[in-house]
């Protein structure tokens, strides 16, 4: 998980705590070109409720988030200037992300935190307005910005820069890029998936992997939520001991004090589960990020399928046109065609007509060759850039998830220690009975 931008900036763990005197980062994970992160410190500081009229003039309540930015060199020099800030709501983040996905189809674009609370265990609220949910979302949005701003390619994007610095006028700027028109239609993409013949093997494996990642993380999230639910029950029932020990102590002489104090410890035990599970939500959030990342990965693979498919279609088209030209030129009909049939039935056409048609075909072939060249380049570029980013993503994922597992284990150890403490205390009380 990316660090809180209040510190230095970049990405994950202990590596990021080193900034050189000039503000550049010593982190080996930082790649060339992550200029944005080196220049500014970013954080999502607060969340606030607003009311307003929406697009269909209905009153609605929504949450806005405060984005604060500060120039990194100022921070490094120890000056503490007031941060620039602006407010954004979730839908604006979504817009930014959609823009990035379309504009950089070879990048595994970092995901946003979930729109609605899912994988909740019964105590957790599924309400979007719930303060805990809002808080976790704030953290998630900050994480998103930090990831994007530290990405070697994405961080250079102008629209991203405006998102962080221009409160008004940003939306217009996004729409002006016309990215929506560039977006691949779903139908095209789906068609490509089914009809492509020779997608790159590595990409297909990666696509399969993204399915596995998605399936496993969602299974894990569900299982974890159920475990949390049950564990909650176990702890809370122990609270009943507190009450009954207290009642029992009232009729006892020597045993009374010991029982009473033990009862208090049982109450403490029952109460401790709330904080424990609250902390565990952080782990769930880390898993969710990669659940959504899996989808971003799959999108890149499908883009490859699309570029490959379009190349195949263009090549196929070129071949068939060349064939047509050959037939026209030699008069030998290799393939069945309507023209061939009509020729046979009604006699061949006049030479002028043939010349005109031949000329047209030559033009189309020339166009087709250009198209094939373009598509070949497009495909090759996509493959090259995407593969680089996929490798980067893999390393990041391995590192982040390993760290998440470590943090989870640390949480478990802390829970065990608390348990040992409470029960040892209770035992002391019992011994005094």
């Amino acid at each position: 998980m990316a660090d809180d931008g209040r510190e230095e900036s970049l990405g994950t763990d202990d590596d990021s705590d080193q900034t050189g005197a000039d503000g550049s980062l010593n982190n080996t994970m930082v790649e060339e070109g992550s200029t944005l992160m080196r220049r500014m410190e970013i954080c999502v500081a607060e969340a606030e409720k607003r009311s307003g009229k929406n697009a269909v003039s209905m009153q609605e309540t929504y949450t806005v988030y405060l984005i604060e930015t500060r120039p990194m060199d100022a921070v490094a020099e120890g000056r503490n200037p007031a941060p620039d800030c602006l407010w954004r709501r979730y839908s604006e983040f979504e817009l930014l992300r959609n823009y990035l996905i379309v504009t950089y189809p070879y990048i595994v674009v970092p995901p946003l935190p979930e729109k609605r609370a899912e994988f909740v265990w019964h105590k957790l609220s599924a309400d979007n307005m719930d303060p805990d949910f809002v808080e976790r979302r704030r953290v998630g949005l900050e994480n998103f910005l930090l990831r994007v701003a530290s990405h070697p390619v994405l961080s250079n994007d102008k629209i991203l820069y405006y998102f962080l610095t221009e409160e008004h006028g940003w939306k217009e700027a996004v729409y002006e890029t016309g990215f929506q028109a560039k977006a691949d239609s779903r139908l095209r993409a789906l068609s490509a998936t089914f009809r492509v013949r020779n997608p790159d093997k590595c990409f297909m494996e990666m696509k399969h992997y993204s399915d596995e990642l998605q399936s496993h993380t969602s299974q894990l999230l569900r299982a974890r939520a159920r475990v949390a639910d049950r564990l909650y029950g176990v702890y809370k029932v122990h609270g009943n001991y507190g009450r009954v020990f207290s009642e029992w102590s009232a009729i006892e002489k020597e045993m009374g004090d010991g029982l009473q104090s033990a009862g208090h410890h049982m109450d403490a035990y029952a109460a401790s589960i709330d904080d424990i599970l609250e902390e565990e939500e952080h782990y769930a959030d880390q898993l969710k990020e990669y659940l959504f990342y899996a989808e971003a990965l799959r999108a890149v693979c499908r883009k490859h399928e699309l570029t490959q498919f379009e190349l195949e279609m263009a090549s196929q088209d070129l071949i068939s046109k060349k064939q047509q030209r050959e037939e026209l030129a030699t008069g030998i009909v290799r393939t069945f065609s309507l023209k061939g049939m009509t020729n046979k039935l009604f006699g061949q056409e006049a030479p002028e007509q043939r010349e005109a048609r031949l000329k047209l075909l030559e033009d189309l072939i020339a166009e087709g060759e250009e198209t094939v060249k373009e598509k070949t380049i497009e495909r090759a570029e996509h493959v090259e850039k995407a593969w680089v980013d996929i490798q980067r993503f893999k390393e990041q994922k391995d590192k982040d998830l390993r760290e998440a597992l470590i943090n989870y284990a640390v949480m478990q150890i802390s829970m065990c220690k608390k348990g040992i403490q409470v029960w040892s205390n209770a035992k002391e009380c019992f011994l005094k009975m």
Partner: protein
Amino acid sequence: MSISAPRGLASSGQKPITEILHPLSAAEEPLSPGPDVTVSGGRDKEVGLTNGTPVETPSPASASVLFNRLHLDDDLDPDTRDPYADTETHDLFVTVDDPKKHVSTMETYITYRVSTKTSRIEFDLPEYSVRRRYQDFDWLRTKLEDSQPTHLIPPLPEKFVMKGVVDRFSEEFVETRMKALDKFLKRIADHPVLSFNPHLNAFLSAKDLNKRQGLALLTKVGESVKSVAGGYKLRVRPPEFCALGEYLDTFNQKLGTIDRIAQRILKEQSEYLTELREYGTVYASWAGSEEELQRPLEGMAGCVTTCCGALEDMSENMSQDFLPVLREYILYIESMKNVLRKRDQSQAEYEGRLEAAVLRKQEDRTPIPAEVEKCQDKMECFNADLKADWERWQSNKRQDFKQLLTGMADKNVTYYEKCQAAWESLITVLQDKQTEDKTSETN
């Protein structure tokens, strides 16, 4: 093992059985005027150790060990003596073990070996080993209740078991029942009066108990006839016994609640265990599709499995050790209430007779018959016995519950310790790989 007996009570001590005169003993023995009874007021400070707790009870290896123990107190410095040990009688040790299944044409049942080691002269031999089945224990209890109605007889584990629901021959059931039977006998052997009961003697030593069944039936009938004939109604229970009765009721209630809570916890834990197992398998299956993360994820799965095992152990322990003891005390309370009722009966009878006699005396100056005095003695004996047993029971209860609850705390601590160890070793594995990566990065 030791027992406590408030000093001064005639019914304690090492007198041979024929000399112990109990006004309410079975018809087999000759009645004689009740001994002078002085009831000790306060509770004896040197309270006896719990009867039946396995804590520091060594199983005696031989009769010579026994004799050594008898002389133990002479050698010991009074300060080092266990303040809870009353040294009067360390001379009867019983153990129940070695369950065996018997299959006959009529029925299938389990017998247990009952081993006795004793230096008492009431027994012909210093050691006995007999096999007894539950029925026999039930017989013994009934005989004791009838022949010692003023005393609290320890409870037996439940008699009836729903055949479809519980497997009477499962290892766990037999083990749990055997432990309870062992406790039952140990408590009786510890008791200053009950341990000298001839029925106990027969139970421990006779080859064959069956012959006595018929006799038992007769005497049982005789007793109940006797008690019904009274039909007196108690007016006022003395405050100390009122308090006793109230305590029993409240305590019964609390134990019932604790039993329910414990069962509920077991249920919740079992459901938690189910989900936890599933959780572990998800990590394992994820590991299959990863490269770098394969080992960490497999490590997670292994860790979760270890925690499952630890939880299983704890739950099993709780269900085998904790719940049965609770249930047993609930039965004990029932027994105590019965004794209290009988005591009330004896008081009612005395008061009834006394009232009648006083009236007659007023009418025609007939002196108060000796029967009335006998009734008074009976009642006072009863009160004294009950109080003594009550004190013993209270102190045993305290020890038993102290042990029970600390045991519960211990099991929980052990469970968490096991889990903590598993997670800590996982972290080492995960972090080792990290440092490997770091060194290769900087190279």
